[in-house]
């Protein structure tokens, strides 16, 4: 009935348990697991894209498994201080063959364990050699194994850009990780990398994608775009600086996502903090990032360049408190972009309000029935001219902080591994 040949030649053999363990153990600190943004069609063989992304399992740390996150090799010639695969570290090493990876993906995918592959690698032998192997693997997976599910490939800094351009024809998404928020910290902690070695290929890929679109070329070129990741708390940059960098990556480089990864000490080094970064900080950065991407805020509105985000209050509340003169707004009249700036009103509530008010004049009772959470919003809204909030700034601040407590306790740093759809549900009520 079901012919294995349909999915190509199987000649790699099953990867060993030990190799799998080594190569995934090192890949797990990469935050991005999102499988969203690609609607790649099935063209015979197996697999397609699921535009909203899909979670297949959740690990005990609360993160989603969407993609098989694996390294081609953890045998690195670079020496980044914070990384357990760095050359100087004494850990078991392994390198997989492209066929081992391909078979693993196809067999996991068929059983619906995963939505696709997130393929990364340490710098094995040299940047060019590594990038060549990554390219070979994804090309094989698409053309020989006939796989059309999601593929995310990590770009290796300092490799010949031709490899990246070629890989982009097969991958749905690529990412060069910025790693650290400033050139200075990068020099100190990742001496073989430089800001330019990461930004230049990013820009080149964005430009190439633009040309691909303009010339209406056949096939695919990174349909789900590019993302990046930076470590927060390993170096001293404040949130305001991190957010400005994120904003410029979105605006100038057309990135789809900037991920933040709370620094966790896996390595002892005098240049590195010995304590992990507070999960709440990462959480606040993601909230602020959300405001940048979906709520029409700019980094300048959210935090001054040298400033950190409030740990006590979410960034939208903090902004609203500084701008009390703009509130309250009338729920029956305020335009969408204004509703979205009300603390506690997220995209979903705003949508419900916009729909419902076409048929009736909404009262606070209606809002409650519609499960619009008013704990925070009531200080910033009127409904039919009625206001039930506080308007003294200090009192509001106290109430907002109190309203924040339960949410923060459960939501610490959970946003990192989920699909964007799941995230939007969570952030919905920001």
């Amino acid at each position, binding site marked *: 009935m079901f012919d294995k040949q349909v999915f190509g030649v199987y000649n790699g053999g*099953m990867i060993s348990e030990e190799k799998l363990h080594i190569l995934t153990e090192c890949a797990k600190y990469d935050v991005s697991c999102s499988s969203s943004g690609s609607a790649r069609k099935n063209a015979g063989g197996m697999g397609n894209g699921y535009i909203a992304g899909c979670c297949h399992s959740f690990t005990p740390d609360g993160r989603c498994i969407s993609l098989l996150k694996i390294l081609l090799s953890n045998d690195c010639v670079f020496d980044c201080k914070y990384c357990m695969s760095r050359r100087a570290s004494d850990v078991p090493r392994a390198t997989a063959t492209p066929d081992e990876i391909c078979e693993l993906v196809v067999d996991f995918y068929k059983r619906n364990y995963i939505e696709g592959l997130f393929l990364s690698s340490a710098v094995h032998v040299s940047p060019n050699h590594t990038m060549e192997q990554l390219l070979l693997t994804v090309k094989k997976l698409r053309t020989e194994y006939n796989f059309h599910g999601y593929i995310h490939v990590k770009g290796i800094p300092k490799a010949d850009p031709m490899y990246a351009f070629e890989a982009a024809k097969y991958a749905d998404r690529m990412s060069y990780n910025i790693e650290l928020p400033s050139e200075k910290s990068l020099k100190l902690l990742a001496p073989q990398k430089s800001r330019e070695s990461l930004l230049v290929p990013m820009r080149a890929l964005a430009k190439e994608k633009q040309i691909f679109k303009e010339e209406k070329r056949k096939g695919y070129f990174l349909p789900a775009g590019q993302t990046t990741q930076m470590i927060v708390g390993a170096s001293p940059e404040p949130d305001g600086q991190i957010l400005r960098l994120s904003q410029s990556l979105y605006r100038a480089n057309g990135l789809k996502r900037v991920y933040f990864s709370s620094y966790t000490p896996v390595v002892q080094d005098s240049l590195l903090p010995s304590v992990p970064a507070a999960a709440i900080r990462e959480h606040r950065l993601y909230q602020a990032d959300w405001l940048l991407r979906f709520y029409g805020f700019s980094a300048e509105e959210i935090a001054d360049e040298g400033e950190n985000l409030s740990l006590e209050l979410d960034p939208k509340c903090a902004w609203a408190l500084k701008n009390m003169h703009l509130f309250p707004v009338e729920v029956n009249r305020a335009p969408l972009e204004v509703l979205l700036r009300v603390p506690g009103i997220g995209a979903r509530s705003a949508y419900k309000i916009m729909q419902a008010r076409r048929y009736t004049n909404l009262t606070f009772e209606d809002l409650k029935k*519609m499960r619009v959470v008013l704990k925070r919003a009531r200080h910033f809204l009127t409904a039919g001219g009625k206001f039930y909030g506080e308007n003294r700034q200090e009192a509001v601040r106290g109430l907002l902080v109190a309203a924040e407590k339960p949410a923060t306790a459960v939501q610490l740093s959970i946003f990192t591994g989920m699909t964007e759809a799941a995230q939007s549900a969570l952030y919905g009520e920001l």
Partner: protein
Amino acid sequence: MIYFFDGSKEAFLCALARAFCDDEAILTSTNAQLSMGQQSIFVAADGARAAQIEQRLLGFDKNCMHDLDLLLRSGDAWRDAAALRYFKFLAEKKRPVRDMLSEEAVIAATECMRRVSYEVHRFHGFVRFLECASGALYAPISPNHDISDLLVPHFRARLPQCPFVIHDVKRKKAAVYDGAHTFVAPLARAEVALAADEKAWQSLWKNYYASVNIPSRERLKQMRGYMPVRYWKFMPEKQLSPSSPC
């Protein structure tokens, strides 16, 4: 008056017609709500009558049968009440009411439908196929709502050359794709001969599951929130040794 019906769309429409002018009406396809002293009646499905009512309702809202289909798939106890209120409201307003999101009738039905659709979305990820010796795939599931056939298009689109069976063991029915057609069939128990390397792939998957976890950031409550325990039964990665904490 309590109106019993068999849970089918036709019987629902007939019951709706009888219950329409009865403000006290309770519509139910289970007997859980049967209260003493209240009169009850069993409304049988009448195809011709149901078709008439369907036409009237479609005149008010051409998408409303899609809503009814979702509502009647729900395994929640309150779904019949929600469906009755929603369709009464629709018949009163004589126009689509879907967006009247501050109306109780709409709020309840929307929530009921959302729960069904959400479970479909979840199962796109949570279904676990076993490979059979024949090469076909078999997935036992035990969802809250009656969704097995709603899962088929998703998997058919990505595995067009591979026959598969999604078996709702709770409702004893299976949604089948035979490589060309899809259909639903009653199925109480399935005998499955597994492919020779099935256990080995499961073992690699469990290994992967354990390796990507970051133990120092354990958040079990969250994991259970996203992936409730009731779904674990058929997930190889959750069949760990008894001593394991999660």
